[in-house]
């Protein structure tokens, strides 16, 4: 198992390297220079050249990439073009809010999706099942920005129950725990709607399969109560394929959070991504992309490890 994990980590290094190459050169394809944005439009070409030289933008692309990579190997993500603070610091200050939002959304989504999916599977073909399937379809289909704006309109603007955005009330003492929770509710609702809509469908179909297995009939033949048959015999098997969905959800949450964080002005990685793109802060953008790639890789590795834990048939050597 340990050798397997070490091998997986070693294999990931060239993959991550490839990701950085692609990111770097795609970013370079964008027209214009970061210097354009924070120089006065009337600045002299001479001055612009000096600023670009100071940022290292006058060197050939290959050299720029190798410089960046050299820094990365030493654990340095460089300085933000915009704020002149280390990229690691900028990202570090944004990771907390994103993890809070992601974590809360995942917990809420799964807490809803798993019991509801089981219920739909047990009542397959009844109105309860159709309602769940219909609701899940709605949850998956509705775009984040639309649901987010809709919720803000109803609950923040019309009813005034919840804030429109941010992590806490600005000014004053920064708000207590309840204030924090109030700010979480709407963005978590948006993210959890999509995640649980997706997950419910997987739980349902996985559970429908498990419930029709021979070993479930064996369990009934032993005289076990229906609850034990469902939760001990069927559910444990049904959850195995869902590990993959979980890993995709974990990785995808960073992507989903881009739009949601933007709408709710949530100061996380998603908002940082948008900000660094629009301000051409390429060093920050490279850093965020690298973090996202690492997250996908870590989620996949985690899924493979969890597989070995939950399914005795899987062994890694």
């Amino acid at each position: 198992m340990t050798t397997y994990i070490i091998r997986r980590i070693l294999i990931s290094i060239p993959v991550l390297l490839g990701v950085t190459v692609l990111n770097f050169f795609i970013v370079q394809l964008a027209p214009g220079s970061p210097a354009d944005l924070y120089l006065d439009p009337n600045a002299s070409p001479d001055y612009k050249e000096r600023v670009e030289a100071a940022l290292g933008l006058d060197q050939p692309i290959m050299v720029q990439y190798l410089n960046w990579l050299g820094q990365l190997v030493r654990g340095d993500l460089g300085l933000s073009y915009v704020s002149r603070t280390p990229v690691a610091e900028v990202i570090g200050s944004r990771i907390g809010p994103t993890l809070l939002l992601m974590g809360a959304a995942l917990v809420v989504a799964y807490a809803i999706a798993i019991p509801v999916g089981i219920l739909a599977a047990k009542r397959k073909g009844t109105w309860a099942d159709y309602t769940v399937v219909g609701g899940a379809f709605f949850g998956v289909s509705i775009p984040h920005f639309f649901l987010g704006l809709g919720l803000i309109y109803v609950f923040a603007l019309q009813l005034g129950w919840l804030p429109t955005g941010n992590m806490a009330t600005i000014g004053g003492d920064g708000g207590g725990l309840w204030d924090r929770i109030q700010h979480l509710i709407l963005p978590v609702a948006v993210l959890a709607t999509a995640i649980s809509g997706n997950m419910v469908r997987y739980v349902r179909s996985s559970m429908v399969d498990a419930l029709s297995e021979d070993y479930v009939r064996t369990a009934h033949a032993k005289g076990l109560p229906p609850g034990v048959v469902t939760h001990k015999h069927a559910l444990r098997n049904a959850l195995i394929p869902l590990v993959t969905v979980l890993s995709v959800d974990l990785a995808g949450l960073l992507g989903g959070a881009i739009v949601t964080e933007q709408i709710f002005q949530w100061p996380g990685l998603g908002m940082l991504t948008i900000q660094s793109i629009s301000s051409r802060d390429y060093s920050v953008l490279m850093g965020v992309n690298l973090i996202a790639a690492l997250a996908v890789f870590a989620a996949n590795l985690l899924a493979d490890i969890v597989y070995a834990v939950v399914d005795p048939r899987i062994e890694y050597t």
Partner: protein
Amino acid sequence: MGALLQVRGIKTEFRSDSGAVVVVDEVSFDLDRGETICLVGESGSGKSVTALSIMGLLPRNGRVADGEIVFEDRNLLDLSEEEMRENRGNSLAMIFQEPMTSLNPVLTIGDQLTEGMLLHLGISRREAAERAVELLELVGVPRAGQIVKDYPHRLSGGMRQRVMIAMALSCSPVLLVADEPTTALDVTIQAQILTLMKKLAEASRTATILITHDLGVVAEMADKVAVMYAGQVVEEADVFELFDHPRHPYTVGLMKSIPHLGADDDARLESIPGSVPSPSNMPDGCRFQDRCPSVMDRCRAERPDLLETSTKRKHLVRCFLYEGEHAAVRGTTAGVAS
């Protein structure tokens, strides 16, 4: 007090989009302690559904619409689901056809073996664990002490079926229902499993319903045989009587379609032409009419009943060809009565 198990004219139907489909109709037989009855017939003849009806394990769209299943003097069909659960796995146990998929892949053998005992026998976890090892040794699983901690995927099909048997026997059932327990196994393993089942059933005087389509298995295991065709019992007799004097044209056809060691090298094996009519489209009259070599006009119009045709031994046949014999039997019993 009658026999241990009396199946009386059960009719099992399944709900479908095009209305109720009757899959088992007028199935009756008796079974006593220590006896083995074989239900024989081709696929779709209603053998498994009969077994599931007795166990109360029909799928949600199925139900026993008529008849009674009297077990230990109680009609199982009158029991609540909860009372039925107390019987299941306890006095009524079942072994299934597919040992490869009948065990739960994510639970240890020991866990699956002790589960039923903890539920029904009211013994401690430790006692159950000890008994699990004993049971595995009884059914001939080697290294039983270790196997209880293992997961099913490490065992072969034959070993898994032994585990299933151990599981079925764990609460000392009075009636064991085995639905084609050896169909999925190699021929050599089949013999071992059958011998094991026979030995254990004899030792504990367990009544056994054995479902099979293999007449070789029937000859080996059965005390009596019920031949099923298209959801009905068409012939019931003790095993020697049935093999020596098969009466129903379907049974006769089945017997002829078994290869014999002594047959000529170039002799062709006989077969029964056609196939079983589908449950949603049963013909009026006798259900075997379209495949029967001795079909008469009457077979297409009237439904034959399952009637006694022998004065010496029990031999029930559902066929108009044996009405004469039945009349003779009635004559003798009437004579005795008067």
